[in-house]
């Protein structure tokens, strides 16, 4: 137990500064612990959150949209709305998970940016395939989800289906 160490060391002539640091550290740990709802306590729930794979898939789609827009300026008008919708999904997923959300920082930092095809048609085809796979992934997650998450996952799947059609 970490918090008991400074107290025990106190007997061994612990400096005042070190003792205070220990107390402050304990306070910070308690405060951070208070940020987690009891049911999301990592200690009480060692398995990853059921929405984690969908968050990863959403980050990958955001990365692919951003990469394609960066490589082909003239696709921006067409792809920016799709990118924004994926960022909305990310925010909604993080809210549902009870974790802080910020679409502004929603870059594809979780995974390496995907390589974009050297021709525009190829890049669009890759994005189309990624949206299609994303739709299937969200649909499967919706069908397997607890009741609380089914509606959000279903909406994400339906939205990705509309993206597939826009890119067809």
């Amino acid at each position, binding site marked *: 137990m970490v918090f008991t160490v400074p107290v025990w060391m106190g007997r061994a002539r612990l400096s005042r500064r070190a003792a205070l640091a220990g107390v402050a550290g304990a306070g910070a740990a308690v405060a951070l612990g208070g940020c987690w709802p009891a049911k999301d306590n990592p200690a009480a729930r060692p398995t990853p959150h059921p929405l984690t794979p969908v968050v990863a898939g959403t980050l990958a789609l955001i990365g692919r949209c951003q990469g394609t827009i960066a490589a082909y300026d003239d696709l921006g008008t067409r792809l920016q709305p799709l990118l924004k919708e994926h960022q909305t999904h990310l925010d909604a997923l993080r809210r549902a998970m009870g974790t802080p959300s910020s679409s502004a920082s929603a870059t594809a930092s979780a995974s390496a940016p995907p390589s974009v095809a050297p021709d525009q048609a190829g890049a669009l085809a890759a994005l189309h395939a990624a949206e299609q796979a994303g739709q299937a992934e969200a649909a499967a997650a919706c*069908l397997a989800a607890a009741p609380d998450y089914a*509606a*959000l996952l279903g909406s994400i799947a339906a939205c990705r289906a509309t993206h597939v059609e826009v890119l067809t």
Partner: protein
Amino acid sequence: MSAATDALSAALAAEHAAIFGCGVIGPRLSGAALTQGQQAEAAHRDRRDRLIVRLTKVGIAAPAALPAYALPFPVTDLGSAQRLAVQLEERTAAIWRVALGPTTGDDRKVALDALTDCALRAARWRRATGEQPGTVPLP
């Protein structure tokens, strides 16, 4: 009645309303838009029939269609018909979305397919009015 069959009954009521709306929209459409409208009406009728069978099978009285439904605005031309078509699909999608939570297994699959179809049709109607790309984040 369970939460699942309650949600399916609500979806059936929404499909009845959608079919009524398609009947209002149809006379204002022509060409490709008319085909789009006819396909939408056929899809809503198909969902309605399947829901009636699903509910009747477990002894639940399927809600009947009302004789008429209040329209959110008058439909007088192609533009207002397309706007109603968008609203009708959005509202039906919303009811199917709600049905995802209380349902499981095959019922949830039916609800997800219906939500996806409504979202696709709403996006097509929006594009028909010139809205690009016509998609929404959480249909």
